[in-house]
């Protein structure tokens, strides 16, 4: 349904915009109906930028994003509105997604004004009620309240309910549970997984690997704007091949096993090598290999539904 084809984003930085920062480079992946894809990466890896490009909040520098085969950057006017009817986003901080001087349910009214001007009150109330119930909220408890009167989990579910008012088919969920408490975050996560059953596709952007594993069929690991490993979640977690993924898996604090003593290098990140592998500077395997410095390795399928961008992948078997 949604396809990213070699998508890149370059920001102009520096005092006069003289320098360039490659935030995302040539990222390609696909999301089909009813599928949850996790986009996993550390801060600065470009994961939020990808989400924003899909929502057309930032422009694309290179490549194409196709939704049902149509390039979304060509959409204008009514076509754009139709796109937003089907593609919506929910972001990290639920508190800053609301205007604190208005009641929280104003977000529903805005949707009504823009997308359903012809719907009468009774029909609309029914629609709001059913979408609130779909996200597990009791309308009587949450309507007519100010944002500060609701909890973070409630506000976040409110935003998902808002997206459900539209005929949504694709949701960009950018770190939506990282600000929630442990006892409520699992409810929001279960809610997302439940929506999958209705055919909704979700791009789940996170830095938390265990959340990614819980919810998604496919995962993509990003490092400095490049997909270094991608494929079926179990394969990536059980047999990570890229050295970066391996390091990431070893540093995630887990409840079922203690950290092994993998040495982590804390060298400051160097300037990006212009042509070689993005992980070259920190990679423990790279030093022996001249190729890593000069050529960026392509994503190669090492087993069915498991792609790795590493020159030494597959060598150890």
């Amino acid at each position, binding site marked *: 349904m949604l396809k990213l084809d070699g998508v890149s984003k370059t920001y102009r930085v520096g005092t006069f915009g003289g320098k360039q920062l490659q935030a995302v480079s040539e990222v390609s992946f696909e999301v089909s109906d009813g599928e949850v894809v996790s986009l996993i990466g550390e801060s600065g890896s470009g994961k939020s930028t990808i989400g924003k490009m899909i929502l057309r909040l930032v422009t694309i520098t290179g490549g194409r994003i196709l939704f049902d085969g149509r390039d979304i950057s060509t959409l204008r006017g009514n076509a754009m509105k139709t796109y937003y009817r089907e593609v919506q986003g929910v972001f990290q901080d639920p508190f800053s997604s609301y205007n604190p001087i208005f009641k929280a349910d104003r977000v529903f009214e805005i949707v009504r004004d823009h997308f359903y001007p012809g719907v009468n009150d009774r029909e609309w109330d029914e629609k709001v009620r059913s979408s609130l119930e779909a996200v597990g909220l009791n309308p009587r408890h949450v309507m007519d309240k100010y944002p500060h009167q609701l909890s973070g989990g409630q506000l976040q579910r409110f935003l998902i309910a808002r997206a459900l008012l539209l005929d949504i088919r694709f949701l960009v969920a950018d770190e939506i549970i990282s600000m929630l*408490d*442990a006892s*409520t975050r699992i409810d929001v996560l279960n809610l997302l997984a439940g929506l999958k059953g209705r055919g909704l596709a979700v791009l789940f952007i996170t830095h938390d690997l*265990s959340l990614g*594993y819980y919810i998604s069929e496919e995962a993509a690991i990003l490092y400095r704007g490049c997909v270094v490993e991608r494929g079926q*979640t179990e394969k990536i977690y059980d047999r990570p091949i890229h050295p970066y993924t391996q390091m*990431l*898996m070893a540093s995630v*604090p*887990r409840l079922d096993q203690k950290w092994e003593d993998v040495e982590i290098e804390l060298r400051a990140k160097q300037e990006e090598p212009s042509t070689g592998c993005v992980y070259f500077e920190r990679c423990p395997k790279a030093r022996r290999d001249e190729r890593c410095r000069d050529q960026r390795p392509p994503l190669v399928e090492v087993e069915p539904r498991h792609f790795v961008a590493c020159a030494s992948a597959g060598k150890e078997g």
Partner: protein
Amino acid sequence: MSLRVEDLTVYYQTLRGDVRALECATFSLADGEIMGLAGESGCGKTTLANSLILLVPPMRHVAGRVLLDGRELPICDVEAMNRYRFKEISVIPQYAMNAMNPTRKIGRMAMELLRSRRIDAKRALPELERRLDLVELSHNVLKMYPIELSGGMKQRMVMVLSTLMDPSLLLADEITSALDVSTQKAVVKMLVGFRDREIVRSVIVITHDMSILYQIADSILIMYAGQLAEKGPTETIIHSPRHPYTKLLITSLPKVGVKHDETRLKGIPGKPPLLLDPPEGCRFRERCPVAFEACREVPPFLEIEPGHFVACWKETEPNA
């Protein structure tokens, strides 16, 4: 015994009455112990830490006392506490990223800090540099402004500054929540290193991330809505908790290897009570699956096996 907290009760004064943020906290910390303090936001973890080091309005000390190495700390007296702060008890604050003065070079700030404690900054310099080596920072950072450092570097720099006087107790408040997983791991390992080298005697690590605590803490204290729920050795709390809240909390955490299609995790229904006018008795009562008559009274925080304390009537009075 390095730290002993007895019946500590601290309220926040507001126009609408007292917010009962910390109620009858009693626990102790052994020499060399790293204790994790965990709970949901608003459960009183930061209040507990702040009342040990900087108890200022709107916080109000209601009852209880704090003993550090056998001496009582004058926690209510902001001035008198100055003798202990930084030297005996120190803190790595939440948002340590922004804890450094942005207009000073880091070295100059460190010197000013030392001078304010009447320490000869020149003589302390070699020690400062040795500490920088410990956290793998180059000595050049002393000539830099905080803005030139990455998040992980700032966190390590603040760690060095906070522990420069070899405090007996270090409070680390959410030191890893803004860091990447690889940096996070390095920073907490360094914290453990500080304890192992006896730069700090004991540490309280405040976090909402249980999996971090499982990696580094010797014991874990769970708080709920201003009350202590359970304290015990890390393995016990994670693998065989006794308080219903701890049990629900641990089982609600997603783990690598758990998939939604196979195992559906459950959250805890309901939400914590407002502490402005909290319900009488056990504050977890309304969300608790095993609550019964006795829970209308506040359960005592009792030791059910050596080193394992629980505040739950079901556990302390099994016949009830």
